[in-house]
Structures are given as C-alpha cells and as structure tokens.
C-alpha cells in the first residue's frame, strides 16, 4: 500500500509548485498587509475606511468562493477588455496568477491585522525621536519601525503562513498542478487514492513542521535584545 507506483517524482513536482505558489502569495500578502496596516493607522479617514472594508469583506467570504470569482470572473473581464485594445483572440487566465493573487489578497487582510498590532507595539516615543532627528517618514519606517515590529509580528505572521500553506490546496480546484492535483491524477491512474492522499498529507505535515521550527528560531533571533520572562 505504501508504494507510490513510480508517481513519487510527479508528487514531488507538485510539492515544488505548492511551495512556489505559497511563497508568491506570501509576498503579495505581506505587501498588501503592510499597506493595509499603514492605511488602518493613517490619519486619513478614507484610507482607514478602505482598509476596514478590505478586512471585513475578506473575513466574510470563503477562500474558495473568492478564488472561483477571480478565476472565472477575471476570465470574463479580461476577454471583454481585450478587444477594446485590439486584441481579439480568446485569453485564458493563468491559474497560477489567479491562485497566487487570490491567496495573496485574502492573506493580505490577515497580515494587515497582524502588522497593525505589531506597529502599535512599538513605542510612540521611538518614532517621535526618529522624527526629532530629522529623519524622513521612510527612514523612520525602515530604520526604527520595521526592525522593531518584526519581533511582535512573527507569532501572528507564522500562524498566517501555516494557514496559507494549507489554503494553497485550493488551487488544485482551478486546475493548477499542485501536489493535491498530482495526487488526484496518480490516484485515478492507480486506483489507490488513500495512499496518494496520505503521501500528500505527510508532505504538508513536513512543510508545516519545518516552518514551525524555522519560525521558532526567527522568534528567538529577533528577541535577542529583549529579556525573556
């Protein structure tokens, strides 16, 4: 039962794609998260309202619905807009782009909350001191806020990352060859679905377990300057 019938390399390829889409979505999510957190804490009521709307809507809609909306809905929009620019062939939306941008968009909202908390945990006086030295906003952000907020952001960030990896399984539904879909194909060919889904489950467990240890290391690394309780 535990033989992969020669489909091992194929599953491994899928694992590689799972990791790839995880990292791309994480990158998108972190960008959106930082923007969202800064918007939520900004003085402009318009920016605050947009950020609030963003996090509320994401909390209310399932990931799968969002992904299907982007994948199928995006297809319709792209093909309506295409001819306007003189492009008349049918355009297929790349499932990788649809998957990564949707997952990034969803986790951007969670990251917004995490980063907002982390920014608030850095003392106001520190930022004021930076401005008092004549630093620009960008300098205060990159020299004072960012290095100190990382420590507070890591636990929430780690949790988001672990959930994100598991969410990438959904891309198999929109036809991307991640490890779940590779397993489904192997299962169809060999009639051994249990074996292949267990193999995939073990892969996910390996990825999450390694992530947990790396995150623990990062947490201690960034807390070096702080006394442990």
């Amino acid at each position, binding site marked *: 039962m535990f033989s992969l019938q020669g489909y091992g390399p194929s599953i491994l390829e899928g694992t590689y794609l799972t990791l790839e889409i995880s990292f791309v979505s994480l990158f998108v999510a972190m960008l959106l998260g930082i923007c969202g957190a800064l918007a939520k804490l900004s003085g402009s009521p318009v920016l605050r309202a947009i950020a609030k709307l963003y996090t509320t*809507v994401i*909390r*209310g*809609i*399932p*990931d*799968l*619905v*969002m992904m*299907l*909306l982007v994948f*199928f*809905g995006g*297809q*319709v929009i792209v093909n309506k807009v295409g001819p306007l620019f003189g492009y008349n062939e049918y355009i297929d939306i790349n499932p990788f782009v649809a998957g990564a941008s949707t997952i990034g968009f969803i986790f951007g909202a969670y990251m917004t909350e995490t980063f907002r908390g982390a920014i608030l945990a850095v003392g106001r006086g520190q930022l004021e001191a930076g401005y008092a030295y004549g630093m620009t906003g960008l300098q205060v952000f990159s020299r004072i806020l960012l290095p100190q907020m990382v420590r507070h952001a890591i636990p929430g960030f780690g949790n988001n990352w672990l959930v994100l990896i*598991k*969410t*990438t*399984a*959904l891309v*198999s*539904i929109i036809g991307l060859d991640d490890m*779940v879909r590779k*397993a*489904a194909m192997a*299962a169809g060919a060999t*009639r*051994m*679905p*249990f*074996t292949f*889904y*267990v193999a*995939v*489950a073990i892969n*996910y*467990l390996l990825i*999450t*377990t390694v992530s947990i240890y790396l995150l623990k290391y990062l947490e201690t690394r960034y807390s070096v300057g702080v006394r442990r309780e």
Partner: protein
Amino acid sequence: MDFAIIASNIDIYLEGLKNTLILVSISLIFGLVMAIPLAVLRTSGNLYVQAPIRAFVYFFRGTPLLVQMFLVYYGFGQFEAMRESVLWPLFREAYFCALFTFALNTCAYTTEIIRGSIVATPHGEIEAARAAGMSTFLMLRRIVLPSAFRRALPAYSNEIIFMLHGSSLASVITIIDITGAARIVNSRYYSPWEAFLTAAVFYMAITFTIVFFVRKLEKLWQRHLMPLEQLDTKIEAPSI
C-alpha cells in the same frame, strides 16, 4: 450584472443555504461535544492518553481540509474491508463524508482552543475547589469548564467562521451548498460575477449574523468583567 439570472435561480441558492447551514451546524455540534472530553484528557491524562489526542490534533491541524476530505471520500474506498463493512453505505455518500471530515476537523481545532483556555485557569481557583473537597469531575463541571468556555469564546467564534468558510469545500465533492449552487449557476449561464457574488453575499450575511450573536453571548458571559459605566444605562435629567 444581470439580476434576472439570480432571481430565476434563487431556489438553487436557498437549497444551497439549507445544506450549508446543516453541514456547518451538525459538524460544529459533534466537533464541540467530542472536543470537550478530549481537551480535558489532553490536559490531565497521562502520556499514553495524551499521545493519541496529540497525534489527532497534529494531523488535522497540519493538513488542508481539502486533503482530509479527499482522504475520506475517495481514499476509504481503496480498502476491500471498508467496502464490505456495514459502514460502507454511509461512507459512500458524499454528504456523510463531508460531515465526518468537517466534524473531526473542527473537533481538532476546538480541542486545542479549549485546552488552551483550561490551561489558563488561575491556580488559585483549582486549589480553592480542592480545598472545598470537590471531586475532579465536580471541579471540572463547576469551576474549570465554565471559566474555560468563557475564555475560549473569542477563539471559538473564529473557529465557527472558519468552519463556515471551510464548508464551501463540500461543493468539490458534488454537494450543493451555497458554493455548489453558485457553480451550477455559473456553468449554466457562464456568468461568474452574478453567480459567485451572490454566494459571497450569502456567506457574508451568515458570517455577520454569527458575529452578532457571539457578541451578544460575550456580553452575557463576561458581564462581570465589563467596566461598570457600560452596563448602566445612563439616566439623565431632561435638559431645559
């Protein structure tokens, strides 16, 4: 946007709403009922009792719900023994497989949530219960669990919402829940925006209803922890 499509297919969506609500509520109830004893055993049992519970929680929290569902729905049929057992008529049904997976999944998360809040019980409360001569069971019933539930409520409300979102996966194994309804409408009319935005509106409505009721429950359970001025309705003299 063509609202006529939604209006003429509202029956499918209502059918989907019914299935989503049934799936979510039944799996939440079973998950919670199983999670309470598991959480208690996980905190107080010896290592041999703890190990299988830990493994169960580790597996269900470390793998995607989709993979778990495939494992049950497609995977169990791989075994001759399973196909000939009395349970096969149940596990052959997509609906039962979804319920089974969701219940176990939410059970694992809930076990961890309740365990966390049991561990956070102040030592003094347990010592006082012991000093008053309570048995372990009585102490759990009167002291530990009530305060643990109170502490667990915010995290558990998140779990309810995650379960609601997770239930959309049932549409992948042919069940017509809200997402399933949207997929049917989309494939019939090829109008993804109408189909999926309607589903999104349904889910948002359920989410915010849940949040509303959890807030009410929080106010009720944590009344003694609230600042006083929020509780009193202020009586002011009419201004002249």
